[in-house]
């Protein structure tokens, strides 16, 4: 008995593990620094988007007369105006608004899970984690639809100078604008979607551990907090992607 208790007694000296730099636990601190490095990657991707946009011809005419052309950078409202079930109806940014709402909601349910963890309320942690997994999965489904539509294209497509038509998008040509526009769409929303996917996997793992009582036995739900930090970061990135890719 005495040997087990000495192992569990935390070290209190400054140089043998008792010191918490920045008054945060090791795990949370490392999550913050990982997120900082991840923010650099997303920052770089969005900056490349800005750089490409500034080095292409902007569309100068009236928004009503806008047509897709490889000559100029497209107006995002004219590209992202489709909604599932409303084929051919012009609903600018409606679907992306829905996706944004779903992700913000998932962030709220995540905070509620963390809050329940502070109170050691296992049932509430389970409930809010399940909601977060649900909203995260719905977001991924929406993104799959958005990609499918972007790749398939519209009925009208884009007419090239030689009279041939282009529908949808791939990495070399697309009906919306310069090739870089679709490339950056795939890279930026794809990299974000990858993060959401890993987030959902992490949430499912944490949910299983919660159900098995791992954190309750451990005496704290810090793992929920750490995954929560990651999840909020994914939401944060979407806020920036939304502004720089869809609004501006």
């Amino acid at each position, binding site marked *: 008995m005495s040997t087990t208790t000495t192992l569990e007694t935390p070290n209190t000296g400054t140089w043998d593990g008792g010191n918490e730099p*920045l*008054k*945060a636990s090791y795990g949370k*601190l490392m999550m*913050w620094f990982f997120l*900082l490095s991840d*923010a*650099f990657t997303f*920052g770089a991707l*969005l*900056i*490349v988007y*800005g*750089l*490409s*946009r*500034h*080095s*292409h*011809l902007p569309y100068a005419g009236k*928004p009503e007369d806008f047509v897709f052309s490889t000559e100029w950078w497209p*107006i995002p*409202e004219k590209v992202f105006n489709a909604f599932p079930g409303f084929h051919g109806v012009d609903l*600018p*940014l409606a679907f992306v*608004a829905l996706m*944004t*709402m779903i992700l*913000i*909601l998932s*962030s*709220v349910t*995540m*905070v*509620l899970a963390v*809050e*329940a963890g502070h*109170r*050691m*309320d296992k*049932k*509430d942690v389970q409930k809010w984690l399940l909601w977060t997994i649900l909203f995260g999965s719905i977001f991924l489904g929406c993104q799959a639809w958005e990609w499918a539509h972007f790749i398939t294209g519209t009925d009208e497509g884009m007419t090239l100078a030689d009279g041939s038509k282009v529908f949808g998008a791939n990495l070399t040509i697309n009906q919306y604008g310069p090739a870089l526009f679709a490339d950056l769409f795939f890279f930026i929303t794809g990299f974000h979607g990858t993060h959401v996917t890993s987030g959902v996997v992490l949430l499912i793992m944490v949910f299983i551990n919660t159900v098995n009582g791992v954190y309750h036995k451990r005496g704290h739900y810090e793992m929920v907090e750490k995954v*929560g*930090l990651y999840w*909020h*970061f994914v*939401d*944060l990135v979407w*806020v*920036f992607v939304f*502004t720089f890719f869809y*609004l*501006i």
Partner: protein
Amino acid sequence: MHTNHSHDFDNAVDIPKPQTKAIWKTFFILVALTAVEFLFAFTMDAGTARNAIFIILTIFKAFYIVAEFMHLKHESKTLIWSIIIPMALVVWLMVALLSEGSYYFDSITNYFK
């Protein structure tokens, strides 16, 4: 086995009541800011002024997510600054590369005139 299904009663011994007021308040602020963004997207003509409004609203949203949801506001000052200062350098990179992009565009359109 528990026969009483009332959640509060079941855990009344050691589980305090949830404190969720601040969380929902932050949520409504985020929803309102997003709604305002859409309002500007549909009522205002595209241009530098509208883009500036979008960026300012985005920074507000980012502040609420990081400060409240990620709890950074309540961490130590040193941690707050060690996150903010590197991000400020990213903003610098953004400004530098945007002007670089404009210069590149200018060069290729005007070089052969």
